[in-house]
């Protein structure tokens, strides 16, 4: 069906689709073999004494160089090649590319950690981020492929007629994608810093170079072939340490099949730890400290003055009594380390008060919807299901994912491609819960109960790298590690697994390279989405419909550069609550796109005003709910009424799409019924997208 590329030579073009596919298989098989040899060679070099930071540099420059190489090989200025990779990407490879596009730094590094910290409730992410592909397959991918344009606003523009629905689509696409891309670039900065030790800002811009050289030169075509390469690296990097850890703990190299038994042991251990007297002692210490701090916070100025006076009095008393010099020094030291002023004291006490969280007993990993009573359990269940719903519908509405299904050669392959996408995503997602359980088992049985004098090597090294990721302090001074004394950050679970499993440093480097691949591939897809929305939809379709192809592609490239720089600048400011913004993108995308896209295909009567108002209504209510219930956004918008007054049915702000999606559907249906039906041409377009090949079709397909 596809027109073979003309003119451009090289690896990523060929005559027939069949020949192209077999050529791709050959290239990527060699590539995978070559990559494994490269890792083995580095492992040997490490044994022979290659220093650790060198391994980091080699991984960084080799992988980014590789992506750049693919980018240069796939450079193009042809519109179909630039926007949709020439529509020649076979189902299997589009599946891999979608997998890499989909799995971001959050999936790769954060997921297993969230599962470790949240237990059963964290599985909402696993369910939501896989089950959404059922909606993509059943409602969108084949029809969008048949429609065969370049972007998602394209579909809205053609189906609903006119620039208004298109413009709403452009705004929503940019809103969802921009926050998401900032988070990816932030992730790139973090990983580059870990891998090589350069500063965060430099890391951001180094990573940015890797992203740009790809998408800038070859658009979708370069991004596609790089993403396939990145998928291979990230899946290899994820699997090796988990398999190794599984062998260490269970003796079986298939963690996904056997971790049920490990989970049983973890559950038994949790029961012991919850009632262990030493654990209770540590938790009580935290409770007391938090209560003290909260009491002081009630009147900061007075507590600050009183505390300072008491310490000064102690020094005076020690000196007056002619106490031993070490007693005097201790008293002076206590005074010296007292907060400088009331503001500093407030900050310190707020931090102490937060220790209340650590006074709680550990969660039971397998328990669904924990809560203190039935009402709390009900709210927890409701939020779990609402989050699953929003993540699923959001998955089926994110433009950078849907766009990928424009690139297959046919409708047939678009359907198969969704299967391959989910299959490749599934490989990582059904491994992450296993990793969380194995890591928990390791920490609960080997680390808890060990002596402080004999902490494992990985604990010491990570405590040094970043205390917010791991800190273990002997709170009750008994020389033994209690679970309550361990403060662990989610991100460490994946990053430290190689060391927990006792693997050489080269595997740690590999994991970091995998995380980098995950972040870069997602960032590529997102940047392209934003630049295309601006250049193709806004500039070409709305401002200057006569622009030549070359001009459009050039403008797209310039915009890509500008958007990338803005995103990098925002990321280098290290914005707070970035994780919230990413999760919010799902709810926003779900409310903005899903109703308008699905009704556009399945209901001929849906019209321009229904779609426009439906998208706006869905977006507005979702945004309103977030702005009134999420602490950071409340600050931004100056909302002062109590959160409890704004919460509907106990639903967390992250799941605001639960309100936006149904409202979007209702508004589209009601408004469409009240306004005239779309014209004959639009109705024929709907028929056109419903049939892969329609005899007597009057709509010319642009995609074939």
């Amino acid at each position: 069906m596809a027109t073979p590329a003309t003119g451009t030579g090289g690896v990523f073009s060929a005559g027939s689709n069949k020949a192209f596919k077999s050529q791709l298989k050959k290239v990527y098989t060699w590539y995978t073999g070559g990559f494994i040899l490269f890792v083995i060679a580095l492992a040997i070099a490490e044994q022979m004494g290659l220093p650790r930071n060198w391994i980091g540099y080699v991984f960084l420059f080799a992988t980014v160089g590789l992506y750049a190489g693919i980018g240069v090989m796939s450079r193009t200025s042809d519109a179909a090649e630039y926007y949709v990779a020439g529509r020649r990407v076979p189902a299997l490879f589009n599946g891999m590319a979608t997998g890499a596009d989909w799995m971001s730094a959050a999936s790769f590094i954060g997921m297993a950690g969230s599962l470790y910290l949240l237990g059963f409730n964290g599985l909402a992410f696993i369910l939501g981020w896989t089950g959404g592909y059922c909606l993509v397959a059943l409602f969108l991918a084949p029809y969008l492929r048949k429609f065969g344009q370049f972007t998602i606003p394209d579909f809205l523009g053609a189906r609903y007629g006119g620039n208004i629905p298109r413009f709403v689509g452009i705004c929503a696409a940019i809103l969802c994608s921009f926050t998401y891309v900032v988070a990816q670039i932030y992730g790139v900065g973090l990983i580059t810093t870990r891998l090589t030790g350069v500063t965060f800002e430099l890391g951001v811009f180094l990573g940015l170079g890797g992203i740009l050289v790809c998408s800038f030169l070859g658009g979708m075509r370069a991004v596609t072939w790089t993403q396939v390469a990145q998928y291979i690296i990230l899946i290899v990097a994820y699997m090796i340490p988990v398999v190794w850890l599984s062998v260490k703990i269970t003796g079986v190299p298939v963690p996904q099949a056997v971790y049920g038994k490990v989970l049983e042991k973890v559950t038994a251990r949790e029961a012991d730890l919850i009632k262990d007297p030493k654990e209770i002692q540590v938790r009580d210490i935290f409770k007391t400290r938090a209560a003290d701090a909260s009491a002081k916070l009630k009147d900061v100025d007075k507590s600050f003055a009183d505390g300072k006076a008491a310490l000064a009095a102690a020094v005076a008393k020690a000196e007056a009594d002619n106490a031993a010099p070490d007693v005097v020094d201790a008293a002076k030291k206590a005074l010296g380390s007292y907060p400088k002023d009331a503001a500093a004291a407030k900050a310190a006490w707020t931090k102490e008060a937060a220790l209340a969280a650590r006074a709680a007993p550990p969660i039971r990993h397998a328990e669904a919807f924990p809560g203190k009573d039935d009402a709390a359990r009900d709210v927890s269940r409701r939020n779990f299901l609402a989050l699953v719903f929003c993540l699923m519908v959001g998955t089926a509405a994110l433009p950078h994912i849907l766009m990928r299904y424009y690139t297959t050669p046919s409708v047939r392959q678009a359907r198969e491609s969704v299967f391959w996408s989910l299959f490749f995503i599934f490989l990582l997602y059904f491994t992450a819960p296993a990793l969380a359980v194995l890591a928990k088992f390791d920490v609960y049985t080997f680390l808890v109960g060990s002596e402080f004098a004999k902490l494992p090597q990985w604990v010491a090294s990570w405590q040094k790298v970043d205390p917010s990721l791991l800190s273990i302090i002997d709170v009750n001074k008994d020389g033994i590690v209690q679970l309550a004394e361990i403060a662990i950050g989610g991100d460490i679970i994946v990053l430290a697994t190689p060391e927990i499993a006792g693997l050489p440093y080269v595997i740690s480097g590999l994991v970091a390279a995998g995380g980098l691949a995950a972040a870069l591939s997602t960032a590529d897809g997102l940047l392209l989405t934003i630049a295309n929305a601006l250049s193709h939809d806004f500039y070409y379709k709305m401002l200057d419909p006569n622009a030549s192809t070359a001009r459009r592609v050039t403008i797209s490239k310039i915009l890509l550069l500008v958007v990338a720089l803005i995103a990098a600048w925002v990321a280098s400011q290290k914005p707070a609550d970035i994780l919230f913004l990413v999760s919010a993108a799902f709810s926003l995308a779900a409310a903005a796109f899903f109703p308008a896209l699905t009704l556009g295909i399945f209901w001929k009567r849906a019209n321009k005003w229904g779609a426009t108002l439906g998208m706006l209504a869905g977006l507005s209510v979702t945004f309103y709910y977030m702005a009134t219930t999420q602490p950071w956004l409340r600050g931004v918008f100056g909302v002062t009424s109590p959160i409890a007054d704004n919460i509907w049915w106990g639903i967390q702000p992250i799941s605001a799409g639960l309100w936006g999606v149904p409202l979007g559907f209702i508004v589209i249906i009601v408004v469409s019924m009240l306004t005239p039906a779309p014209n004959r041409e639009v109705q024929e377009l709907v028929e056109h997208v419903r049939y892969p090949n329609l005899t007597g079709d009057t709509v010319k397909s642009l995609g074939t």
Partner: protein
Amino acid sequence: MQLTQQQHEYWSKNLRVTAILLFIWFVVTFVMGFYARELNQINFFGWPLAFYMSAQGSLIIYVVIIWYYARYMNNLDRVYDVHEGEDD
């Protein structure tokens, strides 16, 4: 243009399989999710059942749903003669 009887039939068959698969998706995700506490009482090779389903079982069903849909529809295209050209 006017759609033929055959073309109408193709679309209604598509809608039927979509509805059935969507129903399975809904049960697996939301009905089982709703009864997770109850299902967790059942032990499945070491996993509590709801934990297993959310971490692995449901995912496998999702993959199968999409695989089945692609197979069914690609076949239906040929039966109702709405398939595309051969070169893919």
